[in-house]
Protein backbone atom coordinates (compact mmCIF):
# COMPACT_ATOMS: atom_id res chain seq x y z
CA UNK A 1 0.00 0.00 0.00
CA UNK A 2 1.37 3.38 -0.98
CA UNK A 3 1.14 6.05 1.72
CA UNK A 4 1.60 9.80 1.55
CA UNK A 5 2.57 11.64 4.72
CA UNK A 6 1.86 15.36 4.85
CA UNK A 7 3.43 17.79 7.28
CA UNK A 8 2.73 19.83 9.18
CA UNK A 9 -0.81 18.70 9.91
CA UNK A 10 -1.83 22.21 11.03
CA UNK A 11 -0.25 25.58 10.28
CA UNK A 12 -1.35 29.01 11.47
CA UNK A 13 0.57 32.03 10.20
CA UNK A 14 0.24 35.78 9.85
CA UNK A 15 -0.59 37.40 6.56
CA UNK A 16 2.58 38.15 4.59
CA UNK A 17 4.62 35.25 5.95
CA UNK A 18 6.10 32.49 3.83
CA UNK A 19 5.45 28.80 4.41
CA UNK A 20 6.27 25.36 3.07
CA UNK A 21 4.25 22.17 3.38
CA UNK A 22 5.57 18.73 2.60
CA UNK A 23 4.30 15.51 1.10
CA UNK A 24 6.51 12.45 1.59
CA UNK A 25 6.39 8.78 0.72
CA UNK A 26 8.65 5.74 0.61
CA UNK A 27 7.04 4.82 -2.72
CA UNK A 28 7.66 6.20 -6.18
CA UNK A 29 4.80 7.97 -7.92
CA UNK A 30 4.50 8.62 -11.64
CA UNK A 31 2.81 11.92 -10.91
CA UNK A 32 1.61 13.95 -8.00
CA UNK A 33 -1.24 16.39 -7.72
CA UNK A 34 -1.93 19.15 -5.20
CA UNK A 35 -5.48 20.16 -4.30
CA UNK A 36 -6.93 22.86 -2.05
CA UNK A 37 -10.17 22.23 -0.23
CA UNK A 38 -12.23 24.93 1.49
CA UNK A 39 -14.85 24.14 4.15
CA UNK A 40 -18.03 22.70 2.70
CA UNK A 41 -16.53 22.28 -0.75
CA UNK A 42 -14.77 19.60 -2.71
CA UNK A 43 -11.02 19.68 -3.42
CA UNK A 44 -9.90 21.81 -6.36
CA UNK A 45 -6.83 20.87 -8.38
CA UNK A 46 -3.93 23.33 -8.15
CA UNK A 47 -1.20 21.56 -10.10
CA UNK A 48 0.07 18.22 -11.44
CA UNK A 49 3.80 17.46 -11.42
CA UNK A 50 5.10 14.57 -13.46
CA UNK A 51 8.88 14.81 -13.84
CA UNK A 52 11.43 14.23 -11.08
CA UNK A 53 12.94 17.57 -10.06
CA UNK A 54 10.15 19.53 -11.73
CA UNK A 55 9.28 22.95 -10.35
CA UNK A 56 6.00 24.66 -11.20
CA UNK A 57 4.94 28.14 -10.21
CA UNK A 58 1.38 29.36 -9.88
CA UNK A 59 1.51 33.03 -8.87
CA UNK A 60 2.73 32.95 -5.24
CA UNK A 61 2.67 29.14 -5.05
CA UNK A 62 5.72 27.07 -5.97
CA UNK A 63 5.45 23.29 -6.30
CA UNK A 64 8.41 20.94 -6.47
CA UNK A 65 8.54 17.22 -7.24
CA UNK A 66 11.50 15.40 -5.73
CA UNK A 67 14.19 13.97 -7.98
CA UNK A 68 13.27 10.43 -6.95
CA UNK A 69 9.54 11.16 -7.36
CA UNK A 70 8.85 10.15 -3.77
CA UNK A 71 8.19 13.56 -2.29
CA UNK A 72 6.86 17.01 -3.09
CA UNK A 73 6.64 20.41 -1.49
CA UNK A 74 4.41 23.44 -1.76
CA UNK A 75 5.85 26.84 -0.92
CA UNK A 76 3.62 29.89 -0.53
CA UNK A 77 5.17 33.34 -0.60
CA UNK A 78 3.54 36.25 1.22
CA UNK A 79 0.52 34.25 2.34
CA UNK A 80 -2.89 35.89 2.17
CA UNK A 81 -6.14 35.07 4.02
CA UNK A 82 -7.51 33.70 0.75
CA UNK A 83 -4.88 30.95 0.91
CA UNK A 84 -6.62 29.49 3.96
CA UNK A 85 -7.76 25.93 3.40
CA UNK A 86 -6.84 22.25 3.48
CA UNK A 87 -4.00 21.36 1.13
CA UNK A 88 -4.00 17.77 -0.09
CA UNK A 89 -1.40 15.94 -2.09
CA UNK A 90 -2.35 12.90 -4.17
CA UNK A 91 -0.05 10.48 -5.95
CA UNK A 92 -0.58 8.14 -8.85
CA UNK A 93 1.45 4.89 -9.08
CA UNK A 94 1.44 4.77 -12.86
CA UNK A 95 0.65 6.87 -15.90
CA UNK A 96 -2.26 4.63 -16.81
CA UNK A 97 -3.58 4.35 -13.30
CA UNK A 98 -6.78 6.04 -12.22
CA UNK A 99 -6.23 5.32 -8.53
CA UNK A 100 -4.92 8.21 -6.48
CA UNK A 101 -3.50 7.91 -2.98
CA UNK A 102 -4.31 11.00 -0.92
CA UNK A 103 -2.45 12.36 2.06
CA UNK A 104 -4.36 13.53 5.14
CA UNK A 105 -3.72 17.15 4.29
CA UNK A 106 -2.26 20.28 5.84
CA UNK A 107 -4.81 22.67 7.30
CA UNK A 108 -3.56 26.22 6.74
CA UNK A 109 -4.95 29.29 8.47
CA UNK A 110 -3.69 32.72 7.40
CA UNK A 111 -4.53 35.37 9.95
CA UNK A 112 -5.13 38.92 8.64
Amino acid at each position, binding site marked *: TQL*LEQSPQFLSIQEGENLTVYCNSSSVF*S*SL*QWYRQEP*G*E*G*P*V*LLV*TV*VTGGEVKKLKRLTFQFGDARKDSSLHITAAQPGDTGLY*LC*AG*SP*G*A*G*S*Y*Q*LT*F*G*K*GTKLSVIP
Partner: protein
Amino acid sequence: GAGVSQSPSNKVTEKGKDVELRCDPISGHTALYWYRQRLGQGLEFLIYFQGNSAPDKSGLPSDRFSAERTGESVSTLTIQRTQQEDSAVYLCASSIDPGAFSPLHFGNGTRLTVT
Protein backbone atom coordinates in the same frame (compact mmCIF):
# COMPACT_ATOMS: atom_id res chain seq x y z
CA GLY B 1 -24.49 22.41 -14.88
CA ALA B 2 -20.87 23.40 -15.13
CA GLY B 3 -19.62 21.31 -12.23
CA VAL B 4 -20.18 18.04 -10.42
CA SER B 5 -23.42 18.16 -8.48
CA GLN B 6 -24.12 16.07 -5.39
CA SER B 7 -27.30 15.66 -3.41
CA PRO B 8 -28.29 15.92 -0.70
CA SER B 9 -25.63 18.24 0.70
CA ASN B 10 -26.39 17.04 4.21
CA LYS B 11 -28.07 13.87 5.46
CA VAL B 12 -28.81 12.90 9.04
CA THR B 13 -30.07 9.37 9.50
CA GLU B 14 -30.65 6.92 12.29
CA LYS B 15 -28.43 3.90 12.74
CA GLY B 16 -29.78 0.97 10.77
CA LYS B 17 -31.52 3.02 8.06
CA ASP B 18 -30.54 2.94 4.39
CA VAL B 19 -29.33 6.05 2.58
CA GLU B 20 -28.87 6.91 -1.08
CA LEU B 21 -26.45 9.58 -2.27
CA ARG B 22 -26.55 11.02 -5.77
CA CYS B 23 -23.88 12.38 -8.07
CA ASP B 24 -24.32 14.20 -11.39
CA PRO B 25 -20.93 14.32 -13.14
CA ILE B 26 -19.78 16.89 -15.67
CA SER B 27 -21.29 16.14 -19.06
CA GLY B 28 -18.88 14.21 -21.26
CA HIS B 29 -16.74 12.94 -18.39
CA THR B 30 -16.36 9.20 -18.78
CA ALA B 31 -14.70 8.48 -15.44
CA LEU B 32 -16.52 8.80 -12.10
CA TYR B 33 -15.16 8.21 -8.62
CA TRP B 34 -16.57 8.05 -5.11
CA TYR B 35 -14.37 8.93 -2.15
CA ARG B 36 -15.03 9.07 1.58
CA GLN B 37 -13.47 11.74 3.79
CA ARG B 38 -13.61 11.15 7.50
CA LEU B 39 -12.77 13.93 9.93
CA GLY B 40 -9.01 14.42 10.07
CA GLN B 41 -8.38 11.77 7.43
CA GLY B 42 -7.40 11.79 3.80
CA LEU B 43 -9.70 10.87 0.97
CA GLU B 44 -10.44 7.16 0.91
CA PHE B 45 -11.18 5.61 -2.50
CA LEU B 46 -14.47 3.74 -2.66
CA ILE B 47 -15.40 2.91 -6.26
CA TYR B 48 -14.56 3.87 -9.86
CA PHE B 49 -16.68 3.79 -13.01
CA GLN B 50 -15.33 4.13 -16.55
CA GLY B 51 -17.78 4.12 -19.41
CA ASN B 52 -19.49 0.77 -19.75
CA SER B 53 -16.63 -1.20 -18.18
CA ALA B 54 -17.12 -3.17 -14.98
CA PRO B 55 -16.61 -0.83 -12.02
CA ASP B 56 -13.65 -1.13 -9.67
CA LYS B 57 -15.31 -1.79 -6.32
CA SER B 58 -12.10 -2.61 -4.48
CA GLY B 59 -12.43 0.32 -2.06
CA LEU B 60 -15.92 -0.43 -0.78
CA PRO B 61 -15.49 -1.09 2.97
CA SER B 62 -18.26 -3.67 3.33
CA ASP B 63 -21.12 -5.31 1.49
CA ARG B 64 -23.44 -2.69 2.96
CA PHE B 65 -22.03 -0.29 0.39
CA SER B 66 -23.01 -0.41 -3.27
CA ALA B 67 -23.02 1.98 -6.20
CA GLU B 68 -24.51 2.18 -9.65
CA ARG B 69 -23.98 4.33 -12.68
CA THR B 70 -26.10 4.44 -15.79
CA GLY B 71 -23.87 4.86 -18.83
CA GLU B 72 -21.88 8.06 -18.43
CA SER B 73 -24.45 9.88 -16.37
CA VAL B 74 -25.78 9.91 -12.84
CA SER B 75 -24.36 7.68 -10.12
CA THR B 76 -25.89 6.66 -6.81
CA LEU B 77 -24.06 5.38 -3.76
CA THR B 78 -26.22 3.34 -1.40
CA ILE B 79 -25.36 2.48 2.18
CA GLN B 80 -27.58 -0.11 3.80
CA ARG B 81 -28.10 -0.53 7.54
CA THR B 82 -25.99 2.54 8.32
CA GLN B 83 -23.59 2.48 11.24
CA GLN B 84 -22.11 5.38 13.21
CA GLU B 85 -18.70 4.75 11.65
CA ASP B 86 -20.25 5.54 8.25
CA SER B 87 -20.47 9.20 9.29
CA ALA B 88 -18.27 11.14 6.87
CA VAL B 89 -18.32 13.40 3.84
CA TYR B 90 -18.88 11.41 0.67
CA LEU B 91 -17.26 13.06 -2.34
CA CYS B 92 -17.93 12.32 -5.97
CA ALA B 93 -15.50 13.29 -8.72
CA SER B 94 -15.42 12.99 -12.48
CA SER B 95 -12.70 13.31 -15.08
CA ILE B 96 -12.78 13.52 -18.84
CA ASP B 97 -10.91 10.24 -19.08
CA PRO B 98 -9.04 7.92 -16.74
CA GLY B 99 -5.36 8.25 -16.14
CA ALA B 100 -2.94 9.93 -13.84
CA PHE B 101 -2.83 13.23 -15.70
CA SER B 102 -6.54 13.89 -15.94
CA PRO B 103 -7.62 16.23 -13.18
CA LEU B 104 -10.46 15.17 -10.93
CA HIS B 105 -13.37 17.58 -10.64
CA PHE B 106 -15.03 17.15 -7.27
CA GLY B 107 -18.52 17.93 -6.12
CA ASN B 108 -19.10 19.60 -2.76
CA GLY B 109 -19.92 16.30 -1.13
CA THR B 110 -22.70 14.88 0.99
CA ARG B 111 -22.12 15.16 4.73
CA LEU B 112 -23.63 12.03 6.27
CA THR B 113 -24.30 11.89 9.98
CA VAL B 114 -25.51 8.62 11.50
CA THR B 115 -27.06 9.05 14.94
